[in-house]
């Protein structure tokens, strides 16, 4: 639980991009609300736009999805996280688990590469949901202005491979926790919502 912030005046909107199982969204809502001391709303599904699909790579361009969300799905809340099960990429990288606007509002995560089955491992729902929670909190952290952390166990540590996600915890390290508080506090202060 974050100290120093009373109830945050804004909240996070969680929306599925394409079909996503309901329980995943509920887990995320509860988790983000608890970790960030911020309200979470689950909103309706957004259809995957066709133009974000890259036939050559058989993947979906996450940058274009974010652009599409900004242009077509404005939100009243101060943060938005899209959850999808399609395989995401950015043009220069082979894949991404998620992307976010640094100090922006929008982020998106993909569950596609979070299933143990993707790596030819037996199904493990507990592990899968842990990975999903860490990935979501990581991207939310970016939208608040946090960058990657050197601490291997901090949720803001970079996840280039799935093992990085498994090594890190689902918590901010003390420094990132302080920074998170500072960034969120500053943002609301600037908006005149707190003193």
């Amino acid at each position, binding site marked *: 639980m974050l100290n120093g912030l009373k109830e945050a005046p804004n909240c996070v909107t969680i929306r599925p991009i394409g079909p996503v199982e309901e329980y995943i969204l509920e887990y995320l809502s509860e988790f983000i609300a608890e970790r960030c001391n911020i309200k979470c709303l689950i909103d309706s599904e957004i259809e995957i736009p066709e133009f974000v699909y890259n036939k050559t790579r058989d993947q979906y361009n996450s940058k274009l999805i974010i652009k599409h969300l900004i242009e077509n799905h404005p939100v009243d809340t101060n943060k938005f996280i899209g959850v999808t099960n399609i395989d995401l990429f950015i043009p*220069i990288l082979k894949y991404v688990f998620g*992307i976010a606007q640094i100090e922006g509002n929008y982020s998106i995560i993909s569950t596609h590469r979070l299933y143990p089955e993707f790596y030819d491992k037996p199904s493990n729902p507990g592990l899968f949901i842990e990975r999903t929670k860490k990935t979501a909190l990581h991207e939310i952290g970016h939208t608040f202005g946090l960058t990657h952390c050197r601490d291997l166990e901090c949720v803001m540590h*970079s996840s*280039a491979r799935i093992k990085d996600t498994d090594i890190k915890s689902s918590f901010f390290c003390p420094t990132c926790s302080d920074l998170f508080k500072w960034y969120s506090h500053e943002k609301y202060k600037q908006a005149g919502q707190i003193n």
Partner: protein
Amino acid sequence: MTGKTRILVVDDEAAIRESLKDWLMEDGYEVGLAVNGLEAVSIVEEQNWDIILLDLKMPEMDGIEAMEKIKAVSPDSEIIMMTAFATIDTAVKAIKMGAFDYLVKPFDPDEIELQIKKIVSHNELIMENILLRQQLEEKSQYDEIIGKSDAMQEVFDLISRVAPTDSTILVSGESGTGKELVAQAIHGNSKRCYLPFIAVNCGALPETLLESELFGYEKGAFTGAEHTKKGRFEMADNGTLFLDEIGDISLKTQVDLLRVLQNKEFRRVGGHDLIDMDARIITATNRDLQKAIKDKRFREDLYYRLNVISIHLPPLRDRKEDIQLLAKAFVKKFCIEINIERKKIAPSAIKLLETYDWPGNVRELENVIERALVIGRSNEITIDDLPFSQNAPAAALPKALKQMEKVHIENILKENNWNISRTARDLSIDRQTLYNKIEKYGINKEGASK
């Protein structure tokens, strides 16, 4: 590396540039973009970049040509080539020509992370090496501040008390008393000791040169400013900036300096962006700044900013008990440096060293010892090896001009057996003037003054 690592992404495809920028920014890097090789070269000419991610195939100027031009301007920037499968041969050629490595597009997320971390830690090692060498040098220089006198013990005590703080310090003392050594000792014993110690001799530079030396300049700020250059304030970031001969700076530079000290930020000459200043400031002077303030040659407000803590180094003539100790330390130092067997100093030479007035202070003593070791033929330094030995009595000459005149007239009168005419002729004055001076100084035949 201090501060953020700066990465320039050069690619003609906007999607690649933008996605790389976002990805690298998540890692906390400062990222710049260039759409082709030509633009990259021009950006590198203006700003420093630690890493350049350079696409191999671009219109107008390809990656290889751009790399050659970038390396010519900024040899310390590390270049990672980005290439498609078809051009791996060229990428290998690029490595042979000086690129750090190459990556095949699209990258695995951990490939790029690994390459950049390799460069960052490589640069950190280089920086650490420089700092360790500097530290080692500083340590030996601190050892050179020698003194058992009460005055020097007070200085040592003050250094140890002020070093851990961030207070601004003004070191005063005559030329050659070791003001820079004190500044280095303070830096070497502070929390900033692993970061740069940058010294500037303000008295040695004309005003305009000092301004660009201190604050740096942007490309095109003035004739001859062909590249953007960091100033000493930027170089000393997180470390210590030592400004020697601060009493010699112009009033304009005093204003600039005051502004930096007050606002903790500055602009490069010809620049618009404010740059944060986080350097501990130590200044030194051999001038009487209080007098300079009265004469309106030095700003009082700047004086109080600089003189938060003051350390005064006594002249060597006021701490003669340290001369033997210092002389022996210099003998030890120079015997090692010039690779000769360790020499001793004859007691008569020590005595002569202790009677001399040392207008050039410790630096003069250091030079005298070095000279004596080089020219001396025996296994110890004797009075014959000291440059002032032949004129030793001169050391006893009075300093005041009138007193000197009196002694000189007495000597010439004695030489001429008190013949007034000959003495007046030798002194190139008339007889009446000589009588007047004899009267004025109370000189008599017995040599006793009134």
